Structure formats: C-alpha cells, structure tokens
C-alpha cells in the first residue's frame, strides 16, 4: 500500500508540517499516539530505544520520556498537554528536561506541536504541525557540533540532538 508522507518546512515561521497516512482506523491510530506502552514500541529508531517514565494524557498533564542510546545514555524530553480534543487532536508544549522533568539548564529550545487526526476508509491521516519557538539553538548546534567538518563525532552529536528534537514531535 502506498501511504502518503508529506514533509514541508516554512523557515520564515519556524514551522515544520508533516502529514502521514496510516493503514488503520482512527481508534487504533489515536491509541498508538497517546498510550505509553504503544509509543515506546515505535518511537525508537537507529538502535535507540524510547522509554516513557510518566504519561498523564489529560489537559495539564505531561509526558516525561527519553530516548536511550545503546550505551544506556538517556536524553529526556517533556511534553505538556495543553489541549486535547479526543480522537481529533492534541497540542503539546515540548522542551528538554532532566529525568525528573526539570527544565534543561543547557538547552532552552521549546516548541509547540499540534497533532491532528482525520478518519478515512481504512486509513487515518495524521498531521503534525510543529512550531519551534526559536530555531536559534538548532543553528548554534549545527555551527558548534562539528557538522560542517563532517567528523564522526559531529554526526554522533547531531544524532543525539536529533533524538531530543524528535521526541518533541510526539509522533
């Protein structure tokens, strides 16, 4: 089956928009995006494991989670649920934190993510609109992370940074 995947970026407004179709009913897709035991099964990538410490899916609640490297180093992220419209959409404020959910002292980047769901026939379309408060940290990271030099260390750092950002998308 050919499932739509659309990824667009509006640099002027710091917004990334991702649209993806999934071959399942709305109920099931909603579940895999909102339940810890489901999220942890698919959020990992490239050998990194997703781990949820807390997930309180209600307005005012939070999702404290980490990406864990094969060496067992954890990168923590926090998603605070601002608005939930059941089986339709939810909005989170995403930031970096420590294992207890205290804000990161080194990375203040935050973003606002709205994930919305549209039911089709045997297909559910999910749209993720991620508005970064500031892309400055990102640019600084690219400048400082050895990215230009293309060193292995630089790429490893980039991967780590991507991890924390990716966990912020709630996808």
């Amino acid at each position, binding site marked *: 089956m050919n*499932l739509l*995947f659309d*990824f667009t*970026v509006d*640099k*002027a407004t*710091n917004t*990334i928009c*991702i649209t*993806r179709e*999934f*071959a*399942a009913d709305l109920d*099931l*897709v909603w579940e*895999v995006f909102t339940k810890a035991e*489901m999220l942890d*099964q*698919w*959020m*990992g*990538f*490239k050998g990194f494991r997703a781990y949820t410490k807390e997930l309180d899916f209600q307005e005012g609640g939070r999702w404290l989670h980490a990406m864990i490297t094969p060496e067992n180093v954890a990168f923590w992220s926090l998603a605070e649920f601002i608005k939930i419209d059941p089986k339709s959409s939810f909005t989170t404020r995403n930031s970096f934190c420590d294992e207890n959910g205290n804000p990161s002292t080194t990375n203040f980047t935050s973003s606002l993510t709205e994930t919305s769901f549209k039911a089709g026939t045997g297909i559910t379309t999910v749209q993720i609109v991620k508005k970064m408060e*500031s*892309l*400055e940290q*990102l*640019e*600084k990271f*690219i*400048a400082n992370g050895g*990215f*230009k030099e293309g060193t292995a260390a630089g790429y490893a750092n*980039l991967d780590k940074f*991507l991890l924390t*950002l*990716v966990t912020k*998308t709630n*996808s």
Partner: protein
Amino acid sequence: MRRDIFQAIADPTRRAILVLIAVQAMTPNAIAEHFDITRQSISKHLRILSECDLLAHKQEGREIYYELKIDKMKEIDIWLDQFRKIMEEKFQRLDQLLYNLKNKKK
C-alpha cells in the same frame, strides 16, 4: 558582531531582500527601489544580513553588489533532511505496529 541566521529570516523585509539577491547580485540602491522604506532602513537590514554571514560583497567600480551566500542556508536543509529521514523510519515502525495490532484483534 556575529548574529544568528534565524534573526535574518525573522523579518519580512529581510526575507524579501534574500529572495531578490538570491536571483542576482544587486547594489543597495537597486534593492531599495523594491521597497517603500528609507534607504537607511535598507542599509540597516543589509547590515544585519551581513552580520548573519548571509551576504557576499562584490566591488565593481564604485558600486558594491550584494549576493546571497547560499551555503549557509543549506546547513539548515541538511538538518531538516536528517529529521525527515528519522520521521520516515519511525513511521515505518508504526506501520508495522499497527499491522500487528490489527492482526491480533482479528
């Protein structure tokens, strides 16, 4: 002074300037003709773009031409491309999970 590239694109006039000079190198006067603002404001925007390391200067006779340093913009594209690939990989895992869940329920 070293500025952040995102300060450059935060302003609509500066975005319009970037679009103009991406097509061809232009003098400050030629750039100013496209806008309904003072020459001083244009100079200010050009200075900021220059501090963001987005402008290349080219002297031709008595005129200075500005053009866009495209490499700088590409760094962001490279990062976004990696991000896109990671999302693709995660979604493929999710496809598999959904497939397994559906089969279990049957």
